[in-house]
């Protein structure tokens, strides 16, 4: 892993590569013993994250979004597929040194700020330990300065006072900021943030989202994993919508929100409570979890889809370009079955104007 990984990354063919790219990323789990079945947590996911970009990965529980994060963090190895980071396939990394270098450049911030910090150590201890591991070139004084600066960058001011505190002396929002402070003290290129605000109080969420936007301005890329599409819109440049282990739609945030192509994206948007809009109360989709154990061929949304046609039961739809940079995997709306699309059958977003 080059330390100065800012230069454009070139593939073997000399083509400029995004910061991170996955190709056919797949992760299956065996469930239920010897004659058990296969759970398809993530199937054939292609996504890319450019430098200084926030990509939101949106989906409900069971969509596979956290599994993608764990694959990217190398907490799991992929069943199939590759993860290219700065032009190198990190799914093949096996030496501890290389893995450590990768984790330094691509740290993860976890969902639960109450269980992700060790209660018996001070914030300073955890900051220093991370720095000794990931930035061994720093001496004691430099470590201290970097740690204090990182804490102040995330709004924990004064940083020196925060260093001597224990996790229980901080609120949930402050603890979540410690997670980000640790990550940025290592000078990362990409932060994997798995539902970083979902356990925080409403009044504190915006602060952490604004912090993420500030990090992007420093050139750090973020993968923001969430089930809250409104917060995804607030921070993200692009949105990736997952359902049952598949990417069903991907595109620039405003395009996906205003011209959602996949029926699932539309269901998701229509379910978002919006206090500013006078929403129609319509009996919605029941919201049952997706089937991912031995799912077989066919679109995985077909059981819940109001537009499903025969083809959806037999052929898995692939992502198709619907407009510039915007792709959706749907036989009906993304036009792989010509002439059968009925866009009027679904409300765009369920809001009255």
């Amino acid at each position, binding site marked *: 892993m080059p330390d100065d990984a800012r230069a454009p990354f070139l593939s073997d063919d000399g083509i400029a590569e995004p910061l991170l790219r996955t190709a056919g990323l797949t992760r299956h789990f065996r469930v239920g013993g010897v004659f058990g079945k296969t759970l398809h947590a993530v199937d054939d996911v292609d996504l890319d994250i450019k430098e200084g970009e926030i990509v939101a990965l949106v989906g409900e529980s069971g969509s596979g979004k956290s599994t993608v994060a764990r694959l990217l963090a190398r907490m799991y190895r992929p069943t199939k597929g590759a993860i290219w980071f700065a032009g190198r396939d990190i799914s093949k990394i096996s030496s501890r040194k290389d893995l450590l270098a990768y984790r330094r450049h691509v740290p993860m911030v976890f969902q639960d700020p109450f269980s992700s910090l060790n209660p018996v150590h001070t914030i300073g201890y955890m900051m220093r330990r991370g720095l000794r591991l990931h930035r061994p070139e720093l001496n004691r004084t430099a470590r201290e300065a970097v740690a204090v600066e990182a804490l102040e960058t995330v709004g924990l001011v004064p940083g020196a006072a925060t260093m001597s505190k224990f996790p229980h002396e901080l609120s949930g929002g*402050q603890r979540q900021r410690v997670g980000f402070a640790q990550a940025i003290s290592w000078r990362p290129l990409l932060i994997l943030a798995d539902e970083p605000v979902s356990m925080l109080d409403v009044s504190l969420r915006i*602060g952490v989202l604004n912090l993420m936007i500030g990090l992007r301005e420093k050139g750090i890329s973020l993968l923001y994993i969430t089930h809250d599409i409104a917060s995804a819109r607030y921070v993200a440049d692009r949105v990736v919508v997952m359902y049952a282990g598949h990417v069903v739609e991907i595109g620039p945030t405003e395009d996906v929100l205003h011209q959602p192509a996949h029926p699932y994206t539309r269901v998701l948007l229509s379910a978002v409570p919006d206090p500013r809009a006078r929403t129609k109360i319509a009996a919605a989709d*029941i919201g049952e*979890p997706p089937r991912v154990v031995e799912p077989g061929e066919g679109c995985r949304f077909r059981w819940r889809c109001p537009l499903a046609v025969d083809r959806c039961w037999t052929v898995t739809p692939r992502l198709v370009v619907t407009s510039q940079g915007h792709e959706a995997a749907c036989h009906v709306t993304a036009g792989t079955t010509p002439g059968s699309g009925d866009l009027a059958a679904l409300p765009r977003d369920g809001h009255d104007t």
Partner: protein
Amino acid sequence: MLLEVDELCIEYLGAPPTRAVDRVSFSLEERTFLGIVGESGCGKSTLLFGIAQLLSPPAEIRSGSVRFMKQDLVGLDESRVRGMRWRNFSVVMQSAMSALNPVKTVSAQYADAMRAHGERDRAAIASRSEEVLRLVGIDPVHLHSYPHQLSGGMRQRVMIAMALLFSPQLILMDEPTSALDVVAQRSLMVQIKELQNQLGFAVIFVTHDMSLVANFSDRLAVMYAGRFVELGGTRATFDRPLHPYTRGLLDAFPSISGPRQPLVGIGGYPPDLADLPAGCHFHPRCPVRMESLCQLVEPEGNRVGDSEVRCHLYAEERSSAG
């Protein structure tokens, strides 16, 4: 009036005691949906448990009354409260997985509840159990399911069906949708509202997510540091929030429609109930606080139109009206 809560104070005993609910008063008419919103630690769940007389030590009602169907539940003999619980009012908890018994089928749990209230007829128990499950849109075959065999959304529906066994006049709900995905959450809210229209019970719905109740509740109470800081019609509160805290909460929600604009939310952190700021409890976070007044004097409730708001900004409107 179905329910009248008057100057209710609930404390967690200790040295010194922590006051989690401080002089809360409101009344609820029949068939009304009241939403209570607030951040974690504001006392909203404690209030709900206090109304249901389900507080356990060290929490205790210090003063005030809870008049339900013309009877003060505070200090009422526990056996008489128990007679009313389920029959006249029922409670739906936040986590159905921990509220349901994991080793009993749904039908066995329904039968337990009905037998506890004197229903002995097995056929009547079976038919009522089927009936309430159908009401919440679950196939009665699931009467023979164990809780772990149901999805999160179905478990919450099973809990709501259980709350409906005796057709109570009031259902108290403590964040029943918070463990669900946005789509399942929406669908459950729609169903609760439909059941309410159909069966005519009143609802008190506690949540941390103000936007969730926006389209469902008739009245909305905003709670901060143990007190109601604003109480009014839901639509009026969303259209014209009065209290600076309510305004801050509304500004903290990114929207999926309209222009993308930077939001600021509310600065600072929610207070520790054991160590509340003097004067108005919200003053350290308030963008429009008035020096000295808000720091020293706790505001009274002021009536503005149909709403009541606890903020010094509205003190004049009260004196001119009265």
